[in-house]
């Protein structure tokens, strides 16, 4: 109320919204296109966050399953690093380290594997032969796809367990049958599932120690040890392993943790995530500029309407509110659409990769919120411009 008792202009709440919606609906094509800009920006942000989270959660569950307490000890190879063999006592010495739960020694045998004895010797298929003990499966956390693993008895006889890749290359889908290994027929008693932490064993035919000595003339020297430790003691164990394995030349021993490679891969992916988030942010910004542009054009085109509304009693605030709300609605539609689109992309990609879908709620809420903030910023200048237009000036344009 004023000194002269005037009842102020006011709009019914539902009319504020109706006016903005109609403003957009009458320019549907342009509204859709400008909302699309925001939509793409938000969708890329949500998808990048969703995909990186899903892949990270997949990695974490993979690490949980595999355990981060597997340590691999290898003889150093290369100039000045020795022969590629570990001392004979290595496995026994490592077993004496307190927090070590399981040790499995693996040696190399100079032999090739063929499906039959008439396959030319040059077509070895890249399959190596490894001498392993019965602890291997336990130490690696590996599983059998078919058949059984080497035991006391089968280790002494010409039997072999094939790694997943080796089985595929040799044409085995299940245990049973024979392969021609190092000039002898070996019975295939088992096939392994892929070993995620030691894929070199996937491409190998595994034989027992006794059988290697008897049939393949092996010297029984290990080239690698797979060590499973108490999870709380991984680092101290890794620290003492070189000196334990080879007290004379600890520097000729390489100690590594296979899960470190997975973690490194994840770190590399995180770096890309940041890059893609940046790109998504740029897309969002461009979308915001698009909305501002459309709104500025709209104000220019609708001078007549602005003049009419002022003549009908709209205050400057009513006019500003209408244009601001139009920009906000555009951005909101873009934001909601973008979140849906980004979630869809995440679901689709995760389904293809077999990941559990994990979209952080902050990406969903934040996506819509970011869109609305962009809309508010983009709509502010055009709205103020519309409000500042004098009614007579606005009415004079046709």
């Amino acid at each position, binding site marked *: 109320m004023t*000194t002269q008792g005037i009842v102020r202009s*006011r709009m019914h709440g*539902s009319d504020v919204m109706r006016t903005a919606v109609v403003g957009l609906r009458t320019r549907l094509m342009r509204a859709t296109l400008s909302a699309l800009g925001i939509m793409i920006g938000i969708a890329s942000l949500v998808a990048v966050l969703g995909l990186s989270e899903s892949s990270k959660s997949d990695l974490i569950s993979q690490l949980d399953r595999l355990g981060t307490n597997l340590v691999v000890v290898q003889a150093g190879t290369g100039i000045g690093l020795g022969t590629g063999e570990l001392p004979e006592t290595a496995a026994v010495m490592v077993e004496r380290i307190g927090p070590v739960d399981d040790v499995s020694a693996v040696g190399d045998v100079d032999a090739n594997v063929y499906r039959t004895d008439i396959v030319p010797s040059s077509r070895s298929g890249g399959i190596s032969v490894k001498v392993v003990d019965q602890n291997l499966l336990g130490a690696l956390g590996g599983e059998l796809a078919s058949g059984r693993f080497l035991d006391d008895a089968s280790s002494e006889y010409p039997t072999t367990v094939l790694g997943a890749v080796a089985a595929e290359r040799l044409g085995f889908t299940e245990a049973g049958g024979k392969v021609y290994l190092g000039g002898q027929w070996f019975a295939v008693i088992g096939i392994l599932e892929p070993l995620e932490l030691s894929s070199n064993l996937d491409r190998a035919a595994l034989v027992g120690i006794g059988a290697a000595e008897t049939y393949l003339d092996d010297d029984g020297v290990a080239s690698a040890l797979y060590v499973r430790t108490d999870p709380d003691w991984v680092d101290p164990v890794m620290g003492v392993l070189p000196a334990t394995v080879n007290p004379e030349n600890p520097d000729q021993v390489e100690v590594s943790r296979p899960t470190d490679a997975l973690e490194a891969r994840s770190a590399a992916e995180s770096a890309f995530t940041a890059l893609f988030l940046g790109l998504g942010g740029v897309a969002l910004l461009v979308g915001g500029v698009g909305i501002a542009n459309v709104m500025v054009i709209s104000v220019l085109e609708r001078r007549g*309407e602005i003049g*009419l509304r002022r*003549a*009908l*009693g709209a205050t*400057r605030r009513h006019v500003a509110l209408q244009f601001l709300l139009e920009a906000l609605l555009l951005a909101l539609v873009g934001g909601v659409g973008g979140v849906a689109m980004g979630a869809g992309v995440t679901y689709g990609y995760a389904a293809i990769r077999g990941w559990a879908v994990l979209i952080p709620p902050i990406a969903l809420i934040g996506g819509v919120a970011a869109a609305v903030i962009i809309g508010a910023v983009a709509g502010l200048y055009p709205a103020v411009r519309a409000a500042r237009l004098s009614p007579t000036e606005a009415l004079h344009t046709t």
Partner: protein
Amino acid sequence: MINGGPSRGQVVLSMEGVTKEFPGTPPVRALRGIDLEVQRGELVGVVGPSGSGKSTLLHIMGTLDLPTSGRVTVAGYDVAELSDKDLSAVRARHIGFVFQQFHLLDGYTSMDNVGDGLLYTGLPIGARRELAVATLRRVGLGHRIDHPAGKLSGGERQRVAVARAILGRPDIVLADEPTGNLDSKSSDAIVELLEELNSDGITLLVITHNREMAERFSRQVSIRDGLIESDSLAMGVGA
């Protein structure tokens, strides 16, 4: 209040020594001292050639613009004492406008265009639509209620605009060349409609360059070079 203005015979619009100058080199003196009173129930034709200052006069009467000097009172409110917000409020409740270019929102139906006449009074849409339907019937567009405004003929569009202007029975309706964009047949119909509405008690001030049309109204004010040349009311009183 929508119907709380002055009663019949009271002054709804008064201008005393109103001038309007637009800055520039040299400044344009659009109005050079206008004195005019419009009483409730009048039908006034303001006639003048283009450039005579009629549009400026209408803008100042309608509180869309402020005079450089002089005093303007609309519906009992002294315009000079009102803020921009208050002027909007006066327009929302006390003044109706009809424009040469109709200024309809093509995406809206006739009903909602008319309903917008009271949009800024806070009246809910249901009540506005009800009033709009009755008013559309009053101006002879009962068959065009749900028609999109963009698909109406020129004459029909101007009827919708007139209906919007009278929706809240404002104290005064200001029409700026209401027949300027219409053919002669539609023009006649609109003028007849304005006369009818006036006989219903609506106060109307019509600005036109068409002397013939103005002569149909009960009072004619002739304006030239920003000054009132003649006023039939004054002449009538004088005779």
